[in-house]
């Protein structure tokens, strides 16, 4: 018979074992939750630390990256990948650090160029029997041409394809959104008071401070006018009134520079504001101390950049690994880390990944549905193009 002490000891022992078991179970749970952090590439760990993100945000990553071994072996044999997109080379390098740790046997070749060399040239080459890139980012309105040419690979077999919400991917798998892009206006904070910032896009037409060259436009109505056109309450009637008034009443500067260059000119004071401007580029200058900020009149134009895989490219498995990783949580956060682009991943469309959350959260969003875009853009251009080519009317 056990003594009370022995019994107590026994109970204590049981209690200790129970506690130990509970502790072990708790540790196991924590370990399971922390498993991604423990297995994460060093680049990813640094990324999470720099962005002040909890590793738990990557839960489910293992499942996302669980691809057939044949893909990995195939990519190992291929050993390379060619990507043509719109990231700056430095941004791409920063973005790909984690991918390169996971798949060190894939050597990258990256090309960033104008629409002509990034989109049109690969299409022309494809039709001539030559493939000049494996992956193509920012395919945009040229998608129809690529589709007609049979130049695009179906990506629906990728585990992460469905991470992208419906409407932000092609249901046939031929393109997938790679990031969100909010297109609003950058403005010079030394020259523009916040009180003068337009609350709506119509306010641009009525406030005199934007007139006579103080506002600059790039030739990209598809990034903002196209979105507004497709929105309820706007449409063709609104567009046919708005666009001519924008050119004839406001008389903006019509600039041939790229959208990113125009932010630099805003900072220099060449004009007070530029439309459309991307959030990520403006934020980069803000972080350097430039007198620039970003503002979104309502509704906020939202576009996505499309990513496609060229059919028959010489690195099909490397392409699969690349796109699958890119659409994973790790890839999408890496993109934000690299160029401040809001993720398109359905679980990551949160304010933590917005360079200017105050300008977007709580406002009406004008998302550019690609099907609507294909229908409406020709009408937009029918009005816009003649005005653009002639410049502003009544100009001396």
């Amino acid at each position, binding site marked *: 018979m056990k003594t009370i002490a022995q019994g107590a000891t026994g109970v204590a022992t049981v209690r200790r074992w129970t506690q130990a078991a509970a502790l072990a179970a708790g540790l196991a749970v924590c370990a399971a939750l922390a498993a991604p952090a423990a297995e994460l590439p060093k680049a990813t760990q640094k990324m999470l630390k720099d962005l002040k993100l909890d590793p738990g945000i990557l839960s489910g990553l293992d499942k996302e990256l669980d691809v057939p071994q044949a893909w990995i072996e195939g990519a190992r044999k291929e050993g390379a990948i*060619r990507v043509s997109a719109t990231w*700056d*080379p*430095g941004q791409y*390098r920063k973005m790909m650090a984690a991918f390169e740790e996971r798949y060190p046997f894939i050597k990258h070749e*990256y*090309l*960033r*160029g*104008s*629409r*002509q*060399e990034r989109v*049109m040239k690969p*299409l*022309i*080459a*494809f*039709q*001539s*029997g*030559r493939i*000049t890139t494996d992956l193509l980012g920012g395919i945009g309105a*040229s998608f129809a*041409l690529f589709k007609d040419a049979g130049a695009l690979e179906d990506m629906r077999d990728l585990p992460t394809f469905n991470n992208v919400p419906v409407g932000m991917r092609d249901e046939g798998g031929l393109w997938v959104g790679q990031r969100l892009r909010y297109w609003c206006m950058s403005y010079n904070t030394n020259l523009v008071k916040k009180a003068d910032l337009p609350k709506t896009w119509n306010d641009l037409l009525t406030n005199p401070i934007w007139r006579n060259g103080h506002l600059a436009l*790039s*030739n*990209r*109505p*598809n990034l903002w006018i196209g979105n507004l056109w497709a929105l309820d309450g706007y449409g063709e009637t609104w567009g046919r009134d708005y666009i001519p008034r924008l050119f004839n009443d406001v008389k903006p500067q*019509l*600039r*041939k*520079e*790229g959208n*990113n*260059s*125009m*932010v*630099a*000119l805003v*900072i*220099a*004071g*060449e004009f007070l504001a530029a439309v459309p401007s991307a959030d990520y*580029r403006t934020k980069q*200058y803000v972080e*350097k*101390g*430039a007198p620039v900020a970003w503002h979104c009149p309502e509704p906020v134009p939202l576009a996505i950049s499309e990513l496609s895989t060229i059919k028959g490219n010489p690195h099909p498995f490397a392409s699969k690994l690349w796109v699958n990783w890119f659409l994973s949580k790790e890839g999408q956060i890496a993109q934000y880390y690299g160029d401040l682009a809001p993720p398109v991943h359905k679980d990551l469309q949160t304010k933590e990944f917005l360079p200017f959350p105050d300008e977007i959260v709580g406002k009406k969003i004008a998302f550019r549905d690609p099907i609507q875009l294909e229908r409406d*853009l020709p009408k*937009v*251009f029918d009005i*816009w*193009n003649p005005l*653009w*080519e*002639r*410049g502003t009317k009544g*100009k001396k």
Partner: protein
Amino acid sequence: MSVATPSLSRFQISLPRIGVPSLWHWIVFVVVLLLVATPLLFLVLGSFSTARLPSEFSLTDLSLANYIKVWSDPGTYAVFTNTVIFAVGSTFVGLVIASALAWLVERTDLPFKIWIYAGVPMTLVMPGMLQAMAWVLLSSPRIGFINVALMNIFGLSSPPFNIYTLPGMIFIEGLRAVPTAFLMLVPLLRSMDPALEEAAATSGARPWSSMRKVTLGLMLPGLMAVMIYQFTSVLEGFEVPGILGLPTGIYVFSTKIYTVLHSASALPAYGEANALGMLYVLIAVVSTYLYSRVIGKSERYTIITGKGYRPKLSKLGFWRWPAFILVLLFISLSVIIPFAVFAYVSFLPFLQAPSAKAFASMSWDNYATIMHTEQLGHMLWNTLIMTVSVATGTVVLSFLISLVVVRSRFWGRKILDQMAFVPHAIPGMVMGLALLWIYLQIDKLDIGLFGSIWSIVIAFIIGYISYGTRVMNAALLQVHKDLEDAAKMSGARQWRVMWRVFCPLLMPSMTGIWIWTILHVIRAAGKPLILADGSENEVLAVVIWNMWDQGYVEAVGAIGTILILVMLAFTLLLRVAGFGRSAHIQGASGQ
């Protein structure tokens, strides 16, 4: 005793007469025909094509639709008017300044000539886009440093200068035209026998009168050649009209074609671009015809004879230092001030006007960004291969073409001359597009030209032989046939005549072509942008353009600053070497 003439007999038996077409004449003709006619063929066919893309071209889809669309657009006529005004004005400004500079450098006692000779071509190093942007920073109505300073100093209510105008465009393009015209005119003046000028001086003519009535008269064919070339260069130029004209809707043909090819809202209209490009071909044909008329009267303007000579320098007297200050002003406006603007910008985190705050924010970050640019080494190697190959190929091919054109009776020499000149009138982007098409077709034969650095080298050589042959033609015209005949009479074979007679006399011109080509090819972006296909043929101009397109003006400033400093050292070195050699030749001539 009879006088044997073994050398003459040997000449008659073993050497082909210069008047009989030899094999190498045919080789040169066929090579140039292929290089020039093939892209022209695709340019013409493309202008009639209604296919969406060049790769969809079919002979069944040809029509006049592109021409109808282009020429029925009222805007096209406004573009034409702007282009004529712009081209004529810029050519006039450039030629006047260049002629004065060349005369001052070569035929007067102007001080510090070697520095001026090196400094003038330096503007060629600066990409046109950057130079135009520099002038935006200097004289933009709102933010221009000069405007802001003058308004503050004199209390002006509105800016005195607006660079976004046609006169502004003419001013900048005129300045940009000076270096090329200068490099084309200097060899003419340097090689000119001063005997006639001395005769004029002996007769009591003042230097200015002598220059007008004797020097200019003798230089007329050369001047005409330079004028025609500059006119077509300005027609083809894109950077200055692109930066300064587009914001205010002032289109010229080059920017119109660019707009048609690079519309962000529509597919590139390749057929329309080709239809517009055909106008350039028409102008080139007319220009070449005029040029050939001038060349046809060449012997009347022979100014290099078999006599030894040394060009005589005119004394400027009281005007010596004022002339130097004027030259310095030109170099400042063209080179020093824009360079200073970019050097300033290269140290900034973002674009801002000079201020204490701006200077306090300066750092080497932009230079560090460049050093860490991926594949920097590969890009620099590609650029080196490209520049040396293009320059050397241009000199060699231009020399051979000019020999046939000027020094032979080959039946196709006039056609050859026109073919060599035509590519100059075709915009770089249109020519690049035509060559892209050709390379893609050639690729089907597994030759692998597209995507290689040689695809760009060939494209540039085709474009630059127009300049090379103009310079070489003008230089060869000044070599009297007596020198050639004397060599042949002594039994020299044709290749030896080329090497021992022509090459030494033409070395200043060859060096000038080589330097000019180097300076142009490094900064040209049109053809490389069309033909770039990745790291295998990505060159410096493409990197600069892409950085500019991305808004990295500060990093572009850093690259431009480094590039200018490297090329300054390069041209100075070549200049010293060139001066040394020509002095040796003149000394050895028994003068």
